[in-house]
C-alpha cells in the first residue's frame, strides 16, 4: 500500500497567479499520476510523472500550463500556471504500487482549487 500526503488541501487563488501542489508518498514508487476532477465529473489524467525523465502529458494538457517536477521516487509537484476560473477543480495525486496493469491506484486526498 501507499500513503500519500497532498497539500494544500484547498486554496482560493486570484486569476493570473500560479499555485504549486505537493505530493509526498511514504514509499518509493516509479509512476506518479496527476489527475483533475471537475465538480461532479470523473477523473481526467493530466500527466504521468516519472523520476529522472520529463513528464508525459495527456492530450489537452501542456507543460507550460501544468509544469511537473519529480525530483525523487517519493515526491512530485504540479503547478497550475496563470490560473483562470476554468482551472477551478480538484487536483489529485496518485501512485501505483507494482505494475500498472496489475496494481491498484492510491490517491492523495486532493487539492481543491477555486480561482476567482
Amino acid at each position, binding site marked *: 500500500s501507499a500513503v500519500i500526503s497532498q497539500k494544500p488541501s484547498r486554496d482560493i487563488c486570484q486569476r493570473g497567479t500560479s499555485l504549486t501542489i505537493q505530493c509526498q508518498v511514504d514509499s518509493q514508487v516509479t509512476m506518479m499520476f496527476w489527475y483533475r476532477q471537475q465538480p461532479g465529473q470523473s477523473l481526467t489524467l493530466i500527466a504521468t510523472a516519472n523520476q529522472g525523465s520529463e513528464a508525459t502529458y495527456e492530450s489537452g494538457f501542456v507543460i507550460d500550463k501544468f509544469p511537473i517536477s519529480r525530483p525523487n521516487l517519493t515526491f512530485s509537484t504540479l503547478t497550475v500556471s496563470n490560473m483562470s476560473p476554468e482551472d477551478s477543480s480538484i487536483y489529485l495525486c496518485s501512485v501505483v504500487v507494482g505494475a500498472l*496493469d496489475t496494481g491498484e*491506484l492510491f490517491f492523495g486526498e486532493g487539492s481543491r482549487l477555486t480561482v476567482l
Partner: protein
Amino acid sequence: GQQVMQIPQYQHVQEGEDFTTYCNSSTTLSNIQWYKQRPGGHPVFLIQLVKSGEVKKQKRLTFQFGEAKKNSSLHITATQTTDVGTYFCAGPRWTSYDKVIFGPGTSLSVIP
C-alpha cells in the same frame, strides 16, 4: 480511442433496496478495477478483477467481470447510507498499460 462507459449516471434508492452499476469498455481489458469516492473524499480502491467471468464478493458487494473481459458490474445488496458515493470502474489502457482510464462513474444516493 479506448473508452470506458458506465450506466446509470445517477441512482437514487431507498435504504434496503439493491443497486447495480454497469461498466462497458470499448476494448478488451487485462483487468478491471472498481473505486468508491465518498462525497468530499478521494477515490478508494475496492477490488480488481482479472479473470474472464470472475465473480468476487465483499460483504454486500458483488463484482463481476464479463466473459469477454469488456464489461463488468457492481451489485450492492440491501443498500445502507454508508454506501453513498460515486462508484468508478477503471481499466489500464490496452495499448501500452501506461495509464488507467476511468469510467464516468455512477453516483449513488440512499434515502433513509
